[in-house]
């Protein structure tokens, strides 16, 4: 999929301006990319000896990268300050692992119409994407999808659930 590339300065200006973040204009200066061969799937060992695997930081509960969800306020799509460290860590990981691709999934709570929520979830996914691009992640590593209020993780009709559902999830695609 062809992904538009954004200038870093334009992003810096608009990143935290919730609600008007779409004034970003594509510019011609591309973000530096390196041609990297596609990663191969991990080979299955045919040896009887136990396979020594090092726990990926993404799967290590003691590593900040273990967390892959950021949460949003009602009707908002700006990234809250408490998630900046988490997203910065993911950005560094993605820069260090240029073959790694992620899909950012945007979600909302149920307090809106299905179609408006699709647009709001998309805005949340785009906020996270822009933050990662600003940190220097290659746009080709990132795709986004909005599910709106579908795939809720919590199905009760109260703020306790709603706050868990208003989220963007970083899904690592080729772990």
């Amino acid at each position, binding site marked *: 999929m062809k992904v538009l590339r954004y200038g870093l300065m334009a992003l810096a200006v608009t990143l935290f301006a919730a609600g008007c973040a779409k004034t970003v204009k594509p510019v011609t200066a591309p973000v530096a990319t390196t041609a990297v061969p596609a990663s191969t799937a991990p080979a299955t060992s045919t040896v009887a000896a136990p396979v020594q695997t090092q726990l990926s930081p993404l799967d290590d509960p003691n590593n900040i990268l273990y967390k892959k969800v950021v949460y949003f306020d009602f009707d908002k799509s700006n990234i809250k300050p408490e998630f900046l460290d988490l997203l910065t860590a993911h950005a560094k990981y993605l820069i260090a692992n240029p073959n790694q691709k992620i899909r950012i999934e945007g979600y909302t709570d149920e307090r809106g119409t299905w179609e408006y929520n699709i647009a709001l979830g998309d805005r949340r996914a785009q906020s996270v*994407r822009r933050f990662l691009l600003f940190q220097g992640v290659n746009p080709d590593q990132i795709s986004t999808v909005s599910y709106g209020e579908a795939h809720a993780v919590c199905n009760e*009709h109260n703020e306790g659930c709603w706050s868990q559902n208003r989220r963007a999830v970083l899904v690592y695609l080729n772990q």
Partner: protein
Amino acid sequence: MWRRFLLIVGLALFPLSASHAVLEIQITKGVSTAVPVAIVPFAWQVQGPVPNTDVAAVIGADLTRSGRFKAIPVKSMLEKPSEASAINFTNWRILAVNDLVIGRIKPAGNGNYQVEFQLFNVYTGQQLLGLSVLTTPQGLRWTAHKISDLIYQKLTGQRGAFATRIAYVEVSGKAGKDSHYALVVADSDGANPQTIFDSNEPIMSPAWSPDGKYLTYVSFENQRPAIYWQNIYTGRRELLSERPGLNSAPAFSPDGRSIALVLSSSPGNPDIYVMNLSTHALRRITHSDAIDTEPVWSPDGHSLYFTSDRGGSPQIYKLSLNGGKPQRITFDGSYNAQARISPDGQILAMVHRESGQLHIAVMNLSTGSLLTLTNGDLDKSPSFAPNGSMIIYEATYHNQGVLEEVSVDGQVHERLSESQSGVSLHAPVWGPFLSQ
């Protein structure tokens, strides 16, 4: 003197399955002015077993569901005539019944039935209607809805919308990604529910074609949104749009030749487009940096109503397809979305947020006055009956998604719920009048 109708055949959809429980209808708020009517069980004059469909009961339930009438119970009837000559109108006057329907079902050759019925005014004894309908055995229930339409029109002057269909999305299973989605088509009373498409990924935004033959909808079956349209009779389906970003909120034009839809004009910027269904050519309609979504056509096809947050909060706008600037329509409250226009173009229904709750509201487009019709927490996805009398919408009841209906004056409320627990119903859309 009988007027004869064309053969009503069993309406065979192309279902994936028909294993759903029939929706249960409960009238949650009626009107005291509902007119009492009596629908006498139709005499069965065919050799062979009595069919499952009780034609008189279907007609009685239809008329009662409109809120305008109240069918009296069979057990309180003092006589059960099936011929005009056998009616003693005194027996109906003492029950304060206004109108009386009698009928009989006769063999018509080739296994078909002739359904004859007559409508009488109890006080004058005058016959208001007398018709004969030819039907297949499978078409018997649909014939009953057709008879309801004719009786309703005779008594109210407004065309009935009982012989119509609804479509909705049924979600079952646990929270998160273990849910299962089904796109279901049913008769307007929830009978004959048939799944026409199902998926483990979300299905959203179903919309009817003006001839009632097609549904367009959004499916996430490939882990990303795409817009399809599907013939509900043949099952044939075709991909219309799977572009990067959003593919959302499709809506057929009144002439059935185009759909309005929402695409990302650039990452994160949803705008409204119109697609020609023959050529798939796209025309961009809105050009804002805001969210523009939920397009719906005016009945004349010249304008689109849509939701936009270009003014800071989601509100409804109208845009002429011949050019010009969008005109803001709603000003009352901080969240007005999902506009739907009544068939006569006079009333705009919407989702209106009040004190954090979502209600269905209607706006008189001539005067601008707003009337909130419902008082649930999460009422959304309004859709007009094709005669404009009722609005079907999704609501939450006992932690479950249900369908509800409300009359446009807010007087009559009813609920259609799935008896199975853990099954939620969403995004109902009421189909058009059908030629048969």
